[in-house]
């Protein structure tokens, strides 16, 4: 592992290494932007680029090719609250990291994020001091901002609304970058298939990919799930997973237009109020409840083979609530016949429950960190009060691997399948049908726009009353 420099270490970053076009045909076709630096050469997961010879000649753990004062350059695509959080966590790791570029669809979001990251009064100020260098020319705005950012960095952080994930992930891996990307990783089946294909390429290129399903990086879950895998409560026959809460933010059109002092295009409005549009968000069963569904799959070591369910919207029914449901109930079936019951709800004043529980042939797991025997005796209880922040662990582990030149993380495939599980649930609640996994995964139905531009029409449009079409079980086609 590289030596750790003090956080205020800012040596020698007056600009970027020059990019040159390499003359080797293989390199040129696969990677037109490649630095002259040997360090970059190794660190960017170049094994696949130059073929297996390099990979077998130099052990991946050998980091003698780049000295300890080398900086791992990162860039963030998607500068909302989560992207800002992820950036600060990346900068707070022990490795020698520098934020050198930022990208967002909106300039104001990017600037707010930069202010948060660099705020000298923030709790993270000490941890990130001297670790950012993002002059105006490396702040990229608009739908294509990611294209400008990716060549400039070693590791790409992706935290845009989920609909863009397949596009950005593909571009990052094509450019041989390690990736941290948030969940979910797509909003429709074509997006999932794209991410699965990119995941395969990332694997071949030995690019580390961490997906923000942070329960996998949380001690309480790791210890709990390990014990279930080891049979402490027998075979798992039933899972129950929940994200029942009061809901999330709404950015209403009137408020946005008042702030902007002008009428927004429909594309701009949907991009701002993205939670309520399926091409961007996937509905809350995908955007939030994926965490719990993913835990269910993890405990079962499997993905569902089919599902059926129901849902609708009863409370959150305004124009600014777009097209998503406010509740879903799904019954998933695994190949061994076991079931996972999934509930998610966004309704204020109702019972809050965000958790997972399991029942086995020899006991139960009533909540994360707790295992009981069939007679109710405590078999395991994790005291998570002093666990470290799993969001930080994600970055600590990813950047330790990158710094050491190791290939350790390939989260994208599970990220895609977890997302697909949640999309399958949405397909069931929107259609009211029993749907097979394979049919869902192979559906050609795309939710995405054909053109990304502020004056382009998004795939769903409001009627004269400003209302959007809502799925109707029994009528809506989802495959």
């Amino acid at each position, binding site marked *: 592992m590289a030596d750790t420099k003090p956080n205020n270490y800012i040596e020698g970053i007056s600009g970027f290494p020059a990019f040159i076009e390499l003359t080797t045909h293989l390199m040129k076709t696969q990677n037109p932007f490649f630095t002259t630096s040997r360090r970059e050469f190794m660190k960017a997961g170049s094994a696949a680029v130059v073929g297996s010879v390099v990979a077998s000649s130099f052990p991946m753990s050998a980091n003698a090719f780049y000295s300890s004062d080398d900086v791992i350059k990162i860039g963030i695509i998607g500068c909302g*609250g989560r992207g800002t959080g992820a950036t600060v966590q990346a900068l707070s790791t022990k490795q020698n990291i520098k934020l050198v570029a930022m990208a967002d669809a909106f300039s104001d979001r990017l600037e707010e994020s930069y202010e*948060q990251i660099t705020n000298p009064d*923030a*709790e993270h100020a000490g941890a990130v001091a001297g670790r950012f260098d993002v002059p105006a020319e490396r702040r990229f705005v608009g739908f294509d901002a990611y294209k400008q950012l990716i060549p400039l960095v070693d590791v790409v952080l992706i935290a845009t609304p989920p609909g863009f994930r397949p596009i950005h992930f593909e571009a990052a891996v094509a450019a041989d970058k390690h990736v941290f990307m948030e969940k979910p990783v797509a909003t429709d089946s074509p997006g999932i298939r794209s991410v699965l294909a990119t995941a395969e390429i990332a694997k071949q290129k030995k690019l580390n990919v961490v997906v923000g399903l942070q329960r996998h990086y949380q001690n309480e879950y790791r210890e709990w799930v390990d014990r279930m895998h080891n049979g402490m409560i027998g075979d798992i026959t039933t899972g129950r997973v929940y994200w*029942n*809460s009061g809901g999330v933010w709404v950015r209403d059109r009137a408020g946005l237009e008042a702030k902007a002092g002008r009428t927004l295009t429909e594309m701009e409005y949907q991009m701002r109020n993205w939670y309520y549009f399926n091409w961007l968000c996937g509905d809350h069963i995908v955007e939030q409840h994926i965490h719990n569904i993913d835990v269910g799959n993890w405990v079962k070591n499997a993905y569902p083979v089919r599902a059926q369910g129901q849902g609708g919207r009863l409370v959150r029914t305004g124009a600014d609530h777009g097209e998503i449901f406010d509740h879903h109930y799904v019954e998933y079936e695994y190949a061994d016949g076991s079931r996972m019951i999934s509930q998610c709800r966004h309704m204020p004043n109702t019972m*809050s429950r965000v958790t997972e529980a399991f029942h086995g042939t020899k006991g139960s797991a009533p*909540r994360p960190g707790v295992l009981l025997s069939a007679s109710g005796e405590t078999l395991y209880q994790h005291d998570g009060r*002093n666990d470290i922040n799993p*969001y930080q662990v994600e970055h600590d582990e990813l950047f330790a691997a990158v710094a050491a030149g190791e290939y350790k993380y390939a989260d994208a495939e599970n990220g895609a399948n977890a997302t697909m599980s949640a999309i399958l649930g949405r397909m069931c609640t929107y259609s009211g049908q029993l749907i097979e996994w394979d049919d869902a995964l192979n559906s050609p139905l795309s939710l995405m726009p054909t053109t990304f531009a502020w004056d382009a029409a998004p795939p769903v449009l409001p009627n004269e009353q400003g209302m959007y079409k809502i799925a109707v079980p029994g009528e809506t086609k989802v495959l």
Partner: protein
Amino acid sequence: MIGAFMRSTSCRHAYNGWLVWLFLVFLSACVSTQDPKMQDPEMHDHDAPAASDSSMPSESGFKLGDTRTLNIPGTNVSFSLVYVPGGTYTIGSPESEKGRDTDEGPAVSVKLGGYWIGQYEVTGDEFSVFRYPDRDADTTAVPGAVYSVDAVSRPSPPYEDPAFGMGGARKPAVGMTQWGALHYAKWISEKTGVFFRLATEAEWETACKAGTTLPFGPGVDATTIAEYAWMSSNGGGKLNEVGSKKPNAWGIYDLFGNAAEWTMDEYQADYASQIAEMNSVDPWIEPSRLHPRTVKGGSYYDSAPQLRCSDRLESTLNWKRRDPQIPKSFWWNTDAPFLGFRLVAPERTLSAEELEMFWTMVLGE
């Protein structure tokens, strides 16, 4: 006193003479006596505390153990308070106390004005009136005041469930930051016309020890604490309904265990020495930083030593570690489902101007 509010450079001072804002007028307007626990003779049938003259009626005519129930105007939600007379009490633990930590002492005298303290931790039912505007109503007990549901600063939607699924109408409300708890106190003050805030450390510990110098107050010890507390040995690792264990000697429930409780004070390791030096009525370590602040009472995670009245817990940024966003929520801790709060209404009143300064000071707004 107003000057004291304004001294931003001073990190600690006493705040003297808090008064319940128009307390007498509105207490009589809001009070109901329907809570059966108020009628429970056992609750009032106890010895006067040795360390004070609190068996004597206060100027206002209230006496130790008096209990009142207040309705939240415009709702069917109520909450109960127990009266603690002003006097001189002893807080801090002696070195001989079993399980003692070094930050608990020395045992010192403290002068307190009279105060009403929540008989229970603030419940999910109560907090949800504040949290959800459609549970609230455009009504207040303050004559002439205009109260608008839409004008209240309310908690933002938390990312996950701050209560980890353990919450409920009669469970302690948990997971809010101290700032969030203080906002609740400001709101309930505006609703009821009674000035509420959190307990100071000294008020909290005095109520817990019920005027004695015993680790758990009279009648409770390490062998019987499980009858009074939801704790590690009996709490099932989760929150339980308030008031479902025995009350302490002054009729106050869940001081031991269940949810731990925010106080008003910044945590200082030599707190007892500092307030002894202050030698003022109602001593308070005014916070000058976000953490640590003092948490009392222990929770369902804890065992007897942490449930002692003098035990102290330091708040930490770590309780917000899983907040995925930056800036992190002002309202919610993502990792403190064991932590709620209890209200205190000090007996002495404040002017409207002083109240405004107080809220500006403690909320930093």
